[in-house]
């Protein structure tokens, strides 16, 4: 039945509009033909519409009236009028139409059965543009200048909006006023417009209305720098800020999310219009803190999202965390975030620093920054360890690690202070974080050491705080902190790095001490055989590059290193480590050590181990292993042979080649293509050197391949 009625009403509406078309069409002809004063005809038309009280029909009819009369309105400069009076008439006409239409529209709300209220509101909402159209038409009338708008249009429109006391109408029409009239007008009438807000119904979403207004004005400000003086002239910030305060105070039921949204809009506005006024920005944040501090810790997802938006805005605007660090209320807002969101925000901050390559250049700023991102730096109270995803944690800590490299100052004194500050913060971070944060700190400190060493000469004297020695002490303690994790392999690497840096600074005792630390760790903590292999090669490599050790220290260390090598668990590992040790006795520098005898000793020892490995393979597998180790040793022989080690003779090389060939031909040898290739290319190399002639060719002469 309902459907039928709808259909009937539809037909009636259409009939009405046909009738309307006829009369109004006639009306517009009259206006055009100038036979009757436009004003009178318009008045007649409005009167005629009074007869129709059915809201929907009335709305359509009046909308039509509004449309049809639009381009025929007596207007300044138009052929139908032109004097002030006729503009007033036109404005009066549309305002009246607006008032009547809004009344009809609001009346719809009160008609019909209660149970269909929702559906009716939906329908009503779809008709809203019919009412709003009047405002659009008003904005199009050229004669509506600022004075006319301020004195007549705006007050009259607002009066109707406030008096209709209808939620839907108030929200929609406020929005319409904001959208259809130009920004200049809004700026000049801010007080009037904002003054209406507290008078609206309590359920009207004022924050949306105000946000729209501020967003619009922000866009306007961004459109051209020429318009900025207008904002200053009217004191837009103070007025908006004031209005927002009033709205929030007058609506205690407004959800947190709502008030923060308002602050976000105000902040966006401030950043666009007054980018130079950090104090305004801080004021907005302060107002937000004030609101948040009356509330329990925010749990609401929507609200936290808004806080993140609030905090991200200044960073995005200034592209420079330095500026945000100057905002005293910034960390206070962050304190109101839950732990997870706090971390998200911290990551945003770090990303901004990385993206913009911002160096944080003083220890005070470092302190402030670490306070901001403390959610990543240390465990917060009441964090549930369970909820922590391993990968997320790694990701976070890696970003902290990257950040540490951005904490930098050219001045060594300040840099040292920064390093102290960072150390202080990361040591509070607990053992899970240290493995991520200690390495970048160590490298940052080592960079400083090298810098100091390079510019040595300018700054000498005992009272200079930033000396390499002092930094090495700090490094020592810092790496030591890893023992609580424990992470002996990482600590060992870092000690070796420090030793190398100490070497470059000519600090023999310091370098020796770091090696000792590394060796102690190796002996006492590194238990896994694979880790031992890696560690021993690191030790050998570093030790090989050291050039400050006196004979005694050097002997002690190389002795230890070769000892460790020979004690590795697997024979092949032993063999490789031992032949690597040969390099400890032959450093290819001008005044590097050249102890040919001990080189030979290492290589012979490696050969013995390779032999033993071969035999072991025979026993366990019934076949000898590949000849890999022998070929590798052969290559070492060739290296030292060419470097001029007198202990390495061509006959030794010859012997080794023959040994390998015999091994390869033996019945139970295991042939492996890559191995064969390695060996034959080694032989080819010898061949090549022979053919090349010269000194090297002569040297190789006795070797037969």
């Amino acid at each position, binding site marked *: 039945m309902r459907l039928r009625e709808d259909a009937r009403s539809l037909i009636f509406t259409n009939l009405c509009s046909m009738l309307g078309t006829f009369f109004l069409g006639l009306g517009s002809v009259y206006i055009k033909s100038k036979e009757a004063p436009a004003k009178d005809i318009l008045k007649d038309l409005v009167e005629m519409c009074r007869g129709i009280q059915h809201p929907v029909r009335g709305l359509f009819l009046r909308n039509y009236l509004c449309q049809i009369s*639009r381009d025929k309105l007596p207007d300044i400069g138009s052929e139908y009028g032109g004097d002030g009076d006729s503009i007033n008439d036109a404005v009066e006409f549309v305002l009246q139409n607006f008032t009547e239409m809004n009344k009809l529209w609001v009346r719809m709300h009160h008609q019909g059965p209660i149970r269909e209220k929702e559906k009716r509101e939906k329908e009503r909402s779809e008709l809203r543009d019919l009412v709003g159209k009047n405002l659009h038409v008003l904005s199009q009338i050229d004669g509506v200048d600022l004075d006319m708008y301020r004195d007549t249009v705006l007050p009259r429109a607002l009066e109707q909006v406030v008096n209709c006391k209808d939620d839907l109408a108030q929200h929609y029409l406020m929005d319409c006023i904001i959208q*259809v009239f130009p920004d200049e007008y809004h700026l000049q009438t801010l007080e009037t417009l904002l003054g209406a807000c507290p008078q609206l119904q309590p359920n009207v979403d004022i924050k949306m209305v105000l946000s729209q207004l501020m967003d619009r004005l922000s866009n306007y400000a961004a459109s051209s720098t020429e318009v900025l003086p207008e904002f200053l002239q009217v004191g837009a910030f103070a007025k908006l800020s004031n209005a927002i305060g009033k709205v929030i105070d007058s609506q205690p039921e407004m959800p947190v999310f709502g008030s923060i949204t308002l602050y976000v809009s105000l902040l966006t506005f401030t950043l666009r219009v007054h980018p130079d006024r950090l104090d305004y920005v801080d004021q907005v944040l302060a107002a937000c803190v004030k609101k948040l501090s009356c509330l329990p810790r925010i749990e609401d997802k929507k609200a936290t999202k808004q806080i993140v938006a609030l905090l991200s805005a200044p960073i995005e605007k200034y592209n420079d965390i330095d500026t945000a660090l100057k905002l005293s209320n910034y960390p206070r807002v962050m304190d109101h975030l839950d732990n997870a969101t706090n971390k998200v925000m911290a990551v945003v901050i770090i990303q901004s620093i990385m993206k913009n390559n911002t160096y944080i250049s003083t220890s005070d700023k470092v302190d402030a920054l670490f306070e901001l991102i403390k959610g990543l730096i240390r465990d917060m109270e009441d964090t549930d360890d369970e909820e922590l995803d391993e990968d997320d944690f790694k990701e976070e800590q890696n970003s902290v690690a990257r950040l540490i490299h951005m904490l930098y100052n050219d001045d060594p004194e300040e840099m040292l202070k920064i390093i102290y500050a960072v150390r202080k913060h990361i040591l509070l971070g607990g053992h899970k974080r240290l493995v991520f944060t200690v390495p970048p700190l160590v490298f940052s400190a080592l960079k400083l050491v090298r810098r100091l060493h390079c510019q040595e000469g300018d700054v000498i004297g005992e009272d200079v705080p930033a000396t390499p020695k002092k930094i090495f002490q700090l490094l020592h303690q810092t790496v030591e902190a890893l023992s609580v994790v424990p992470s002996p392999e990482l600590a060992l690497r870092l000690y070796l790095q420090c030793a190398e840096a100490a070497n470059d600074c000519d600090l023999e005792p310091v370098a020796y001490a770091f090696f000792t630390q590394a060796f102690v760790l190796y002996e006492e903590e590194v238990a896994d055989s694979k880790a031992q292999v890696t560690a021993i090669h690191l030790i050998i490599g570093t030790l090989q590059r050291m050039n400050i050790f006196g004979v005694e220290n050097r002997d002690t260390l190389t002795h230890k290193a070769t000892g460790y090598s020979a004690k590795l668990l697997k024979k092949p590992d032993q063999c490789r480590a031992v032949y690597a040790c040969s390099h400890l006795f032959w450093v290819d520098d001008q005044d590097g050590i050249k102890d040919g005898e001990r080189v030979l000793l290492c290589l012979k020892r490696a050969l013995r181990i390779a032999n033993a490995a071969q035999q072991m393979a025979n026993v366990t597998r019934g076949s000898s292993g590949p000849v890999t180790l022998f070929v590798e040793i052969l290559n070492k022989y060739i290296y030292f042979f060419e470097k001029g080690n007198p202990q390495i003779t061509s006959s030794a090389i010859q012997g080794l080649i023959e040994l390998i060939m015999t091994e390869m031909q033996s019945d139970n040898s295991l042939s492996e293509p890559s191995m064969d290739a390695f060996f034959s290319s080694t032989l080819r190399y010898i061949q090549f050197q022979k053919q090349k002639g010269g000194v090297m060719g002569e040297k190789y002469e006795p070797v037969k391949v």
Partner: protein
Amino acid sequence: MASRRRMLLKVIILGDSGVGKTSLMNQYVNKKFSNQYKATIGADFLTKEIQVEDRLFTLQMLILPFLQIWDTAGQERFQSLGVAFYRGADCCVLVYDVNVVKSFDNLNNWREEFLIQASPSDPENFPFVVLGNKIDVDGGNSRVVSEKKAKAWCASKGNIPYFETSAKEGINVEAAFECIAKNALKNEPEEEIYLPDTVDMAGSSRLQSSSSGCEC
């Protein structure tokens, strides 16, 4: 003249808020432009007398808002209103702002909206024209949608003609609407609407067709 009959070419202009639909129309019809932004509420239209291939036409341009009335049942009453706006469209112009990527991304939605509301008999071949507006802003430095990208999209939708315009500087506006009118003319109208010359009822033709549309 009074007895001459002119044919109506109806063009629907769609696009996100603020892309410059009203400004383009004003530039074309009145040769005027304003920096002031006054949003359009509801439908809006303008007409212009034009001459194509020695024939006179009334070009009626309608800017339509997004109608969100297709999601729920039982809205037939106002649906008819929407359909009425779209009925008899000869060409559809899709406008975006080359400086706002979202407005470009939304072109698809606007095209869909048109095809649903107007349901042309041959949707594959219905004439569209795309305008990338505001190319003047910041000397083109703030532009985010490249001409290439826009043209690729147009090509993928059946080679829609594409123009880069500035309503502010009047760049390409005339040319674009010329193309729009030609394409509208190509779309052989199913029923020609003749208007008496004396009564300027351009604005009323819309509701007229709305009532005629509901008689069936």
